[in-house]
């Protein structure tokens, strides 16, 4: 089988303007992957399937990964002008100071596809796509038109992660019920308040349960669904 770089080159040769990026996997199995640009992903996927040398006709696994917003603190050298008293004289001095800046790296949702070839009996080739963010730009092209096996798996990602797959023939919730609102596989999903969450019905739990009951009776409404995950 071709190496990941060769595949990348082949894709770029075949699909002009395709944004492909190699993602290196440091683990011993070295299953490196290709990150596709969502805009050209469908064309790339068609190429991967139809190219006689690659012939990746079998989409084995599709899954979503949630990368939440991360708070990154980094040291930045900042140049600034400070009013300083040097030798009794006030001066404007330029100096560089280390400043710890916190910024929020926007998270994203990712869809990962594992491809194999039944004809050529090789694989896996891993491709992945990222959404713009986790809230409003959660759309990706559906690869179900290329590989039918994505149908239920993409539906599952839609259900549990909330990635909207454009071009999917039947994008409905698959595992949760239809009027369920949250996406429970996201890492910031909060469970509905359930007083018996704790494993065993110990005294502490029972006390918690009683507190919960008291709160419910006191008219604290809407407690059941306090954990909307959005």
């Amino acid at each position: 089988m071709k190496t990941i770089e060769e595949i990348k080159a082949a894709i770029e040769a075949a699909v002009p303007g395709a944004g492909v990026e190699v993602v290196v996997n440091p683990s011993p199995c070295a299953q490196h992957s290709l990150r596709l640009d969502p805009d050209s992903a469908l064309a790339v996927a068609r190429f991967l399937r139809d190219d006689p040398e690659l012939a990746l006709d079998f989409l084995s696994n599709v899954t979503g990964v949630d990368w939440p917003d991360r708070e990154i603190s980094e040291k930045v050298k900042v140049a600034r002008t400070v009013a300083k008293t040097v030798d009794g004289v006030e001066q404007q001095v330029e100096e560089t100071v280390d400043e710890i800046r916190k910024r929020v790296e926007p998270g994203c949702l990712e869809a990962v596809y594992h491809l194999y070839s039944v004809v050529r009996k090789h694989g896996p080739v891993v491709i992945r796509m990222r959404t713009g963010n986790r809230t409003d730009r959660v759309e990706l092209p559906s690869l179900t038109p290329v590989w039918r096996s994505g149908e239920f798996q993409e539906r599952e990602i839609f259900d549990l992660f909330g990635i909207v797959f454009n071009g999917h023939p039947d994008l409905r919730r698959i595992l949760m019920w239809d009027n369920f609102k949250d996406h429970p596989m996201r890492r910031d999903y909060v469970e509905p308040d359930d007083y018996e969450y704790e494993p065993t019905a110990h005294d502490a739990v029972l006390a918690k349960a009683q507190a919960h009951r008291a709160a419910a009776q006191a008219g604290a409404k809407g407690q059941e669904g306090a954990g909307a995950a959005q």
Partner: protein
Amino acid sequence: MFGEGILKGLAETAKNFFGSYVSADRLTTVEYPEKRLEPIEAARVFPFLVYDGGDWQAGLRCVACQICEKECPPKCIYIEKSKDKKPDAVGKMQFYPTRFDIDVSVCMSCQICVEVCPFDAIKMDKLFELATDDRFGGLILDRGMLAKSNQYFHGIHPTEAAEVDARLTAERAKSAAKAGAPAAKDAGRPQPPPPGEK
């Protein structure tokens, strides 16, 4: 093709029907409450706590290290560690659990608590007849219900119990020889490697 398949099938069931009167292979029923299957030594159902000697409160091997509580996948173990130390079976001062509950209505019988226990204190029982109509009273086993003697352990898992005993005696002998006087000092430290990690 003109009905032989059907006749062959009928012959097969007839063979089993008549065979059930003559051959044990064709009548495999074990009439449960009266007769039981041959016990399988490795069988595991729910955990129990092993104690040495005659008094379960004194002889409990558990030192409330709470590893099993942390490692338990469904989190069905609940332990409260004692504030003070008590002498264990060989006289070392140890912490002990003031409370050790297992909710068998949650336990998944995975045996991970046994694997991670450095003290051979928790083992798997074979008792499965726990059906009850009492949801909260019958299914949360406390220390007293969990504690079972080493003899009982020998009774249900003879091979494993013999291994454990041999290992424990060796270790105790070693630590007694090595330490001599300050035996109580390193009592709380887990010494033997967990059996699953050898």
